């Protein structure tokens, strides 16, 4: 008798123990009981899916066509596409999309390059005390965002902050990072450098998964380190880089805490930190325009979904999936 048969028998013994033989219902058969237990165990998530995901998702879609507010919930009216039409001409929404875009252009490349660079560095077998460096380069991501943002606000202060002191010391003009509409994006991207830890670790695992035979073969063919990095490391790492890029994009569109802490939620200077999520927070929870807020949330959702799909579509061109070729 095989092990499989034994288990089936064991399971059926469990299922018939309760009583004399009669017509079994579905949940009295071994597979029925197994299915029932499975559903019992996943039920917390299933209930949560209905209560906190599917329900609210539909509700927020419906709300986005209303003028719902919490002060007069009974006076709610369907306003058709008014909220969406209003968004198209709302200077704050347009500004917030531009702000998010400007930040993304500076921040995403910096994050991707820094996380890959750090990973290459702490992966190098030549480095002494590699593990210490890994832990320390990773550590800043564990600092509460509010605290790390406050530290950086002080560090970037144009009068008393150290960065501008260093820049002035070497003869460069220290920009007013926080209060300038232009410099605020590089400033936020610098703050974002403390958030690359997870990407760095994922890249590190990717680097370690590159088969060493490939490097050896390339070395025999006379390839230098630069060529090997471009022709071997990057292609093999490309699925991981795509994953990081997608996550980085999603978090960029949800950017909130740093912008809120920086200006106490005002979006200064001149709305240069009015990120789309901050605009949503203000419309929905400070001005009590919950219907309009739901419309902004859906705009955000559609943009993130669209960009993710675009990334995956482009990924066919540059992402190398080793498994599909062998």
């Amino acid at each position, binding site marked *: 008798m095989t*092990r499989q048969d*034994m*288990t089936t028998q064991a399971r059926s013994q469990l299922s018939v123990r309760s009583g004399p033989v009669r017509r079994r219902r579905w949940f009295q058969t071994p*597979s029925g009981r197994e*299915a*029932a237990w*499975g*559903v019992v*165990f*996943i039920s*917390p*998530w*299933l209930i*949560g*899916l209905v*209560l*906190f*995901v599917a329900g*609210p998702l539909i509700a*927020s879609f419906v*709300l986005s066509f209303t003028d719902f507010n919490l002060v007069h919930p009974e006076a709610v009216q369907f306003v058709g596409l008014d909220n969406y039409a209003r968004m198209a001409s709302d200077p704050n929404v347009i500004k917030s999309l531009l702000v998010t875009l400007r930040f993304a252009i500076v921040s995403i490349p910096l994050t991707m390059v820094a996380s890959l660079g750090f990973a290459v560095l702490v992966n190098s077998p*030549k*480095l002494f005390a590699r593990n210490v*460096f*890994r*832990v*320390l*380069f*990773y*550590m*800043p991501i*564990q*600092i*509460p*965002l*509010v*605290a*790390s943002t*406050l*530290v950086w606000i*002080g560090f970037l202060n144009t009068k*008393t902050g*150290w960065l501008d002191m260093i820049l002035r010391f070497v003869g460069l003009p220290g920009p007013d990072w926080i209060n300038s509409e232009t410099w605020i994006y590089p400033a936020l991207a610098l703050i974002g450098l403390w958030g690359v830890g997870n990407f760095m670790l994922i890249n*590190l*695992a*990717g680097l370690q998964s590159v088969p060493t035979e490939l490097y050896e073969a390339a070395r025999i063919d006379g390839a230098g380190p630069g060529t090997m990095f471009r022709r071997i490391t990057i292609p093999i790492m490309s699925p991981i880089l795509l994953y990081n890029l997608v996550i980085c994009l*999603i978090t960029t*569109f*949800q950017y909130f*805490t740093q912008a*809120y802490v920086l200006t*106490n939620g005002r979006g200064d200077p001149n709305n240069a930190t009015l990120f789309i999520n901050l605009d*949503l927070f203000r419309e929905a*929870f400070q001005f009590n325009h*919950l219907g309009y*807020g*739901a419309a902004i949330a859906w705009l*955000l959702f559609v943009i*993130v979904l669209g960009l*993710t799909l675009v990334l995956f579509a482009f990924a066919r061109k540059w992402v190398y999936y080793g498994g599909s070729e062998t």
Partner: protein
Amino acid sequence: MTAQSASRLRSFSDRSPVSRSYRRFLGRASLTLFAVVLLSAYLLPLLYMITTALQQPEQRTTAGAPIYPAAPVTGVYQGETYPIYQVPIDGAIRDLMLVVKGRESSTFVDPADPTGTLIEWTGRWRTLDQAWTFSPDTANFTTAWSQLNFPRLLFNTAAIAVLSTLAAVVSSALVAYGFARFRFPGKNMLFVVLIATIILPFQATLIPTYIIFVKLGWNGTWLPLIVPHLFANAFNVFLLRQYFMSIPRELDEAAMIDGAGPFRILRSVILPGAVPALTAVTLFHFFFSWNDFFVPLLYLSGKPDLQTLPIGIQQYNALYVSEPTLIQAAALMTMIVPVIVFFLAQRSFMRAVVITGVEK
């Protein structure tokens, strides 16, 4: 050093094994030095924070004050305290007490010899630099501690983190067990839905959830921060399921033959076999809850007694934005617990980041 080894050091192109290993050592040392410099620059804001938190506010507004935490040096002359300045006399700089301030010339006393002669110096004393001594000051911490009501905030943050972590880990373990060990119709489709919810932006469900919590009277309570975690989190479920599936099924079956039911198997086979994954999920959720800003801001910003640390120090910063010494002390106090927990648990923590990132 012998002449032989010196000549080996001089000619790096030499093919002898000593020079090759020496060259390798040099390469490693210079790479490590580069990493140290890069890491120092990366963590420099932390040094800024510690330095500023240990400074007295007056030091920051005084021209010529050093960058490290310092206090002006003073001396005592005939029972009175006087500041000490760096005075150029006869081509040398001397640290002297300024006793009588004059317009064009002032009178100084040597602090090493307070009974000695008065020294007359011609020049404007305002152009002189004060003498400073290294003197870290912990007053910022005690001030911020009481102004923030720090013990209260710390308790709130820890209590919410513990309760929501407990909820998240228990519920996620149950759900992960269901996905890892039982066959039921639609399982694969449900699992795809589960993964999809990881990338769903939380804003998409935010507003109706908020309305429900307000209607339930939960605004201004801890419940919105804890109750949603009773329903498992996709990220945790995914991590635990991967780990549960690596536990041999034979162990379950042996327990089943001994008469164990599904709960018993979960408790005595699966959970003990998945301690690393459970630790990782616990740490992930603990940090998430400790650092969370948006949700506590939404539900607790008007309740100083129920707030968490991130909300507390954000509001503190808004009030005391002109006092960086207090703000940096508060920031340091907020990060100390998560950073210590991280250093204690970094091994299993960092391994779990890799598992979730690579095996998606």
